[in-house]
């Protein structure tokens, strides 16, 4: 009798253990944040940890990039589009117990747009002419001119609401309004956040989350396989993904990023100052071979410097189809029937190192010999980016909406086109969505038809996630690992 009882107890314990879903999670990230204040640094690693988890803004991004209500439950826009009246949620408390009120919003926005502000995205706030608290839960934001994307701007990690009471130690002890409170930071290893019991919204399923920083791809692979981490956001080695895909314990998520990977061409250097030569280079490149060979199939071919998931994207890949024979003919036309030799400088990421070897082989087919040098980032910045001492190089430009760099003649590929510069100027003062879209499309076409750079592919965001873990974002509309909707299934 006694024995059966023990047995049933044991069985009940086992069953009980299996029934209760896990409530903690360990997320692997490649980069450790320098500190934890998203409003005073550009480092994406900060937002990955704190965005929406610890800090919230008036509005927030959804997983699909849509803009949803955040701390503001609703808003009204004046007829002329220059005054936004935000109605704040009531009963929202910061992690230190103080109440969120309109004063905190005024403080945060004024701090971000102040002259001495160190905010990395001050342009987001440039249009604000004044912020005032109408009452405790109502904030009025005045704009100097109507702005179509103001609510989008307020969803950025750089626009989160902070409190004057806790601003002093924000870099080491971030106090926000989010669903998780900051718990612990083991420098060089991990950051832990735990569930906020007083959260205003739906309580998250997770009680505790740990971000573990692993920069070495082989170590990331080992940690994932051993089950030390439950998900790796932005997995650094695409070659391992096939293995994770084949393993029923894991899911592989492949989403979009803002990273246009290009074969940058030194437009002022002979012979690349001739558009025929640049076109020949572009046509000698087999984009699919690079995506398969360097990224193991993850990536979307692009024909211009614009993200394919953007509604204004124009598919211009046909401007430079893979055609070595035509490329060779173009080279001959430009006066280089026997080709020429140039330098190909490669920074450390594997898309550049591997992609570089493939491109070198493809260019050799049309007679262009490349001298490859593998550089560290510091050397690359000094020689290629600042020193213009390169013929070709490969970089992924990960900033969102960065087509404007082509309007800067001093930028490292040294593209100087007055028409394009005028167009970008027009764009920056244009508010009408339809006209903006037209201008953006025109801009994409100009650089594509000028063959400024070899446009290769859009970098994919690949994450490896435990098959039982739900709710990890697939795409990266902003740098964030939003854990509020993450949960374990049985």
């Amino acid at each position, binding site marked *: 009798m006694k024995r059966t009882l023990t047995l049933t107890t044991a069985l009940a314990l086992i069953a009980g253990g299996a029934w209760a879903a896990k409530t903690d999670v360990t997320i692997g990230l490649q980069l450790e944040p320098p500190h934890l204040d998203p409003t005073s640094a550009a480092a994406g690693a900060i937002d990955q940890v704190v965005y929406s988890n610890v800090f919230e803004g008036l509005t927030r991004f959804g997983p699909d990039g849509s803009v949803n209500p955040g701390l503001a439950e609703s808003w009204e826009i004046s007829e002329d589009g220059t005054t936004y009246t935000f109605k704040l949620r009531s009963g929202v408390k910061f992690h230190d117990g103080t109440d969120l009120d309109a004063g905190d919003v005024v403080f945060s926005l004024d701090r971000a747009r102040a002259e001495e502000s160190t905010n990395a995205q001050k342009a987001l706030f440039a249009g604000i002419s004044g912020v005032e608290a109408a009452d405790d839960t109502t904030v009025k934001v005045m704009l100097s001119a109507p702005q179509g994307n103001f609510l989008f701007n307020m969803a950025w990690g750089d626009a989160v609401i902070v409190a004057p009471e806790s601003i002093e130690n924000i870099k080491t002890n971030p106090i926000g309004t989010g669903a998780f409170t900051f718990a612990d930071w083991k420098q060089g290893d991990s950051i832990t956040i735990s569930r906020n019991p007083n959260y205003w919204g739906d309580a998250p399923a997770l009680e505790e989350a740990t971000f573990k920083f692993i920069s070495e*791809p*082989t170590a990331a*692979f080992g940690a994932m396989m051993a089950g030390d981490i439950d998900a790796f956001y932005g997995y650094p*080695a695409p*070659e*391992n993904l*096939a*293995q994770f895909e084949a393993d029923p314990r894991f899911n592989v998520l492949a989403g979009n990023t803002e990273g246009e990977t290009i074969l940058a061409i030194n437009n002022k250097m002979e012979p690349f100052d001739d558009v025929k030569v640049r076109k020949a280079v572009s046509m000698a490149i087999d984009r699919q*071979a690079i995506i*398969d*060979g360097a990224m193991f199939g993850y990536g979307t071919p692009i024909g211009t410097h614009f993200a394919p998931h953007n509604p204004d994207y124009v598919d211009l890949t046909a401007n430079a189809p893979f055609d070595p024979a035509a490329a060779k003919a173009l080279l001959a036309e430009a006066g280089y029937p026997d080709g020429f030799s140039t330098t190909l400088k490669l920074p450390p990421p*594997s898309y550049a190192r*591997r992609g*570089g*070897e*493939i491109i*070198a*082989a*493809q260019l*050799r087919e049309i007679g262009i010999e490349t*001298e*490859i*040098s*593998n550089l560290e980032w510091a050397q690359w910045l000094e020689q290629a980016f600042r020193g213009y001492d390169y013929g070709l190089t490969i970089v992924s430009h990960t900033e969102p909406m960065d087509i404007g760099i082509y309007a800067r003649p001093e930028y490292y590929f040294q593209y100087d086109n007055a028409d394009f510069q005028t167009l970008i100027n027009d764009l920056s003062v244009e508010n009408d969505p339809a006209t903006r879209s037209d201008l953006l499309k025109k801009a994409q076409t100009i650089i594509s038809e000028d063959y400024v750079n070899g446009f290769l592919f859009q970098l994919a965001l690949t994450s490896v996630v435990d098959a039982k873990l739900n709710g990890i974002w697939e795409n990266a509309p902003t740098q964030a690992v939003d854990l509020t909707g993450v949960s374990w299934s049985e």
Partner: protein
Amino acid sequence: MTEAGFLHAALRSRNLVLGLSLTLVFAAAALVSFLWTPYDVTQLDIPGKLQTPSASHWFGTDHFGRDILSMIMVGAQTSIAVAIVAVGIGMGVGVPLGLAAAVHRGSLMDEVIMRGNDLVFAFPSLLIAIMITAVFGPSALNAIIAIGIFNIPVFARLTRGAALSIWTRDFILSARVSGKGPARISIEHILPNVTNLLIVQGTIQFSLGILAEAALSYVGLGVQPPTPSWGRMLADSQTLISLAPHMALFPGFAILLTVLGLNLAGDGLRDILDPRIRRTGR
């Protein structure tokens, strides 16, 4: 020793036979690769990547679909060329320095040369090689120079040590009496008497040179792509090791066997050529 005697002794030494045959296999592979390789090593075949060893690709293919056997053959060229030139630099500079230092033991020249050697010796050779290539940029030439510089003190010391004992011998005295100057004596009498030692040391340094080249290429400071190099093949295979272990195994074995072969050959040669061992041991 007569020629027949040398051959006889050489064949009797198992180390030497095994070591030389291993070395010859790789030397032959390198020589053949000048004329012919199974596949072109600069030709990528992305759809055919990461194939396991088969009849058409004996050692399989790498992450770009290149034939690994062909790459190992051409890589042998690289390794052997770098090592030969590096040992050549070491001998070409080190031996004359050693001979000069030995002329007058304790002279100013001796001190300057030997303390200079100590200085170079004091640094871990691979670290300095990394520094040289980091400052002057990674390339095969800089790798050769870096490895060569570290061979200089090895040969200078060895030469000086052996030469000093020969300078005290009677036949040197008679050469001096007959009016030969120190330079002439060094070349005509000292050098032939230290050659055996130099050959043995050269073999060992040669294997170290191959290792150093592989190490530099592994960290990306040696021969640059697309020229195949065993060290870079290993580096490329690192993240793929669980997916395609053959990518790491073959270049790894190539390095292991060449270095082993050269060391065995060096040991065997020492048994036969080194006068000290010959007199006491046999």
